[in-house]
C-alpha cells in the first residue's frame, strides 16, 4: 500500500478545491459586510439579512419559484416517465426514432432559442384562441415542463434499460395482468429513477433564468430573474445574504443525501454478509 500522499496530488487537490469554493466563501463573507458598498469591508454585521427578511418582493419571488418548480417537476416526471416507457417498453412503433430524437432535442437546444420559440408560440396562441391572456406563472410553468421532461425521459429510459424485462416477464408469468405488472413491479422498481428525475426537474426550474425571462410577463418575477435584475443595477449586499441562505440550504440537502447513501451502502454490505452465510 502506498500510504504517503504525494505532494503533487495534495497540491492539485488544494488548487482544485480553492478554484471551486473560494468564490462562494467570499460571497458568504461579504454577506456579513456592514458596508453598503459590496467591495468595501465595513466590519461584521447581519444588517443585510434583516433587510432581506423585510423585503416582501424577495419572498414573493422565492414563493413563485418554488411553486413553479414543484408543479414543473411533478408534470415533467409524469410526462417524461410516459415518454421513457414508450421508448423502452413499447417495442418498435412507427416513428420511434423520430420520437426519440425529438425527445432529447431540448437537451441540446440553446436556451435562448427554446425561450424565443416558446414566446412566439404563446403570442400566436393568444391570437388564435385567446389563451394565455397574460404571460406569467402559467407560461413559465409550461415552458419549464417542455424542457425538464426531456431530462426525466432520459433518466427513466436509462433506468428501464438497466432493469431489464425479466422481472416484468416473471410477474406476467405468475399471472399478473399488464396493469398489475406496471403498478406492482415496474413502478416500484422505477421509483428511484422517478425521484431523481423529479429532483432534477425541480432544480432545473429553480435555476432557469433565460427561458423564464422570455416567457414571463409583468408581475411574475422568479427568484433568478429578481437576482439578475437587481445585480444589473449594481452589486447589492442583501443579494449576498440571499445567496448565502441558498448555499446553506443546498449544503443541508447534500448532507442528507450523502447520509442516506451511506446508510444504503451499509445495508447492502449487511445483506451481502447474510447472503454469504447461506451456502454451507
Amino acid at each position, binding site marked *: 500500500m502506498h500510504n504517503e500522499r504525494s505532494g503533487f496530488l495534495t497540491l492539485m487537490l488544494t488548487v482544485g478545491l480553492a478554484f471551486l469554493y473560494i468564490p462562494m466563501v467570499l460571497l458568504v463573507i461579504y454577506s456579513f459586510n456592514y458596508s453598503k458598498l459590496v467591495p468595501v469591508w465595513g466590519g461584521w454585521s447581519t444588517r443585510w439579512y434583516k433587510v432581506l427578511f423585510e423585503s416582501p418582493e424577495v419572498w414573493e419571488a422565492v414563493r413563485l419559484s418554488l411553486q413553479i418548480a414543484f408543479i414543473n417537476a411533478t408534470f415533467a416526471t409524469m410526462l417524461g416517465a410516459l415518454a421513457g416507457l414508450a421508448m423502452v417498453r413499447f417495442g418498435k412503433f412507427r416513428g420511434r426514432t423520430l420520437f426519440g430524437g425529438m425527445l432529447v432535442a431540448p437537451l441540446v437546444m440553446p436556451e435562448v432559442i427554446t425561450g424565443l420559440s416558446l414566446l412566439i408560440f404563446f403570442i400566436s396562441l393568444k391570437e388564435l384562441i385567446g389563451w394565455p391572456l397574460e404571460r406569467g406563472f402559467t407560461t413559465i410553468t409550461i415552458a419549464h415542463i417542455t424542457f425538464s421532461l426531456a431530462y426525466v425521459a432520459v433518466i427513466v429510459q436509462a433506468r428501464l434499460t438497466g432493469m431489464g424485462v*425479466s*422481472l416484468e*416477464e*416473471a*410477474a*406476467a*408469468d*405468475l*399471472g*399478473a*395482468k399488464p396493469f*398489475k405488472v406496471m403498478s*406492482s*413491479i415496474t413502478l*416500484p*422498481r422505477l421509483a428511484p429513477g422517478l425521484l431523481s428525475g423529479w429532483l432534477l426537474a425541480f432544480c432545473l426550474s429553480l435555476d432557469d433564468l433565460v427561458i423564464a425571462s422570455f416567457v414571463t410577463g409583468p408581475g411574475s418575477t422568479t427568484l433568478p430573474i429578481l437576482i439578475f435584475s437587481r445585480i444589473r443595477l449594481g452589486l447589492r449586499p442583501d443579494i449576498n445574504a440571499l445567496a448565502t441562505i441558498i448555499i446553506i440550504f443546498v449544503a443541508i440537502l447534500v448532507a442528507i443525501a450523502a447520509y442516506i447513501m451511506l446508510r444504503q451502502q451499509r445495508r*447492502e454490505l449487511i*445483506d*451481502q454478509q*447474510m*447472503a*454469504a*452465510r*447461506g*451456502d454451507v
Partner: protein
Amino acid sequence: MVNVKTSSGSDALTDTKEISKDKPLLEIRGVSKKFGDFIAVNNVDLDIYQGELFCLLGGSGCGKTTLLRMLAGFEKPSSGQILIDSQDMSEVPPYKRPTNMMFQNYALFPHMTVEKNIAFGLEQDGLAKAEISDKIDSILKLVELQDYKKRRPQQLSGGQRQRVALARALVKQPKLLLLDEPLGALDKKLREQTQFELMNIQDKVGVTFVVVTHDQEEAMTLSTRIAVMDRGRFIQTGTPTEIYEYPRDRFVADFIGSANILDGKVVSNLEGIIKVSTYLGKFSFKSNSNISKGSNLYVGLRPEKISISRTSSKSTNITGYIDDIGYFGNTSRYKVRLDNDQIIDVTAQNQKRPKDEKDRLTYEDKVQLSWDNSSAMLLLK
C-alpha cells in the same frame, strides 16, 4: 457420470414414474420463429408427456431459449402451433397460460420478501389469505427455506435464491414448469448437489419440467429425455442413454461427451448389416439405413470405451505411443499417437494408486489399445 440414475441404483426413478404415453401434455407442431432474416427456431416438432423432465440441450444461439420463451408466451411463433393439454396457446397471453417459468437469473422481485415473492402468483389468482399462507409454508418446507420467509432476495445466497425461484414457480402448480438454465448461476459443487434436489422435487410434485441448458452433464443427469438442438433444429431426441450411446451424427457424438471420430467408407450394406472400413479396421453395425456402398460416413469411438495397457494381449487392436497425458485424479486422459500419426483419445480409470514412477504410464510409453467393436458408433454425418 454417463447415467447417474442407473449407476446410483435408483433406476426405479424412471421406471416407477408413470409417464403416460397415450396423450402428450405438450404438443409442438411445426413451430418456427424468425427475427428479421434470422431463423431462431426452424420448423420444430415435439411431444412431451405428463411427468417428464425434458431437456432442451444446445450451445448458445441454438434456439433453445427462444423455444422456451414461446412456450411461456413471451414470444409468438412465426408459424406453427403450440398445444398444452390439447388447447391451442397461440392467442393466450403469458398471464393466462398454465405454465410457470424459472428464469435464468431467477428474476426474484428485489423489493419484496421471500414470502411476498411466492405469494405474488397466488394473489393474482385471488386466493384467500389463509390459503396463500398455507401454500407458502408447504412449498418453503419442500425447498427447505422455512426460516427465510422475511428475508429479501439480496440477503440470500445463490443456492437459496435458486430455491426461492423454484418455489415461486411451483407454488402455482402449473401443468408445465419451464426452467431456463436452472443451475447456470451456481458454482460447480453446489450445482451437482442441486441437480439431485431438483430431480427429487420434480418427483415429489409430479409436475412436467422442460429445462433449457447448455451443460450436457446437467442434461444427462436430470432428464428423462433430451432434445439436442443446433441452429434452430432438433438434431436428435431420446433418453440420455440413447443419445450418449447411439448418437445420430458427429455433432451429437461430439457435443455429448467426447468421441474419436474416424473417417469411414461403407463396404457393404446387406440385410440390415452395414460394414464400414476405417484406418482402425472394419466395423459392422446393425442398421436399416439405406446408405449405399462406397459412401462416406463416420465411426465414433468413445475414449472411455478403449482400454490402454503396456502389455499386449489377444484383444489388442492397435499399438501406439503416449503423446500427452491429462491427469484428473479419478481418471486420466491419454492422447495416443499411432504409426500413421493419427491421435486417439483414451480415458482410463485410475483404479489403483501407482506403486512407483515405473508403475505409471508416461510420455512416449508404447501402449496397447483395445476395444470392443460393438462399442463403436455409426455416425451418419
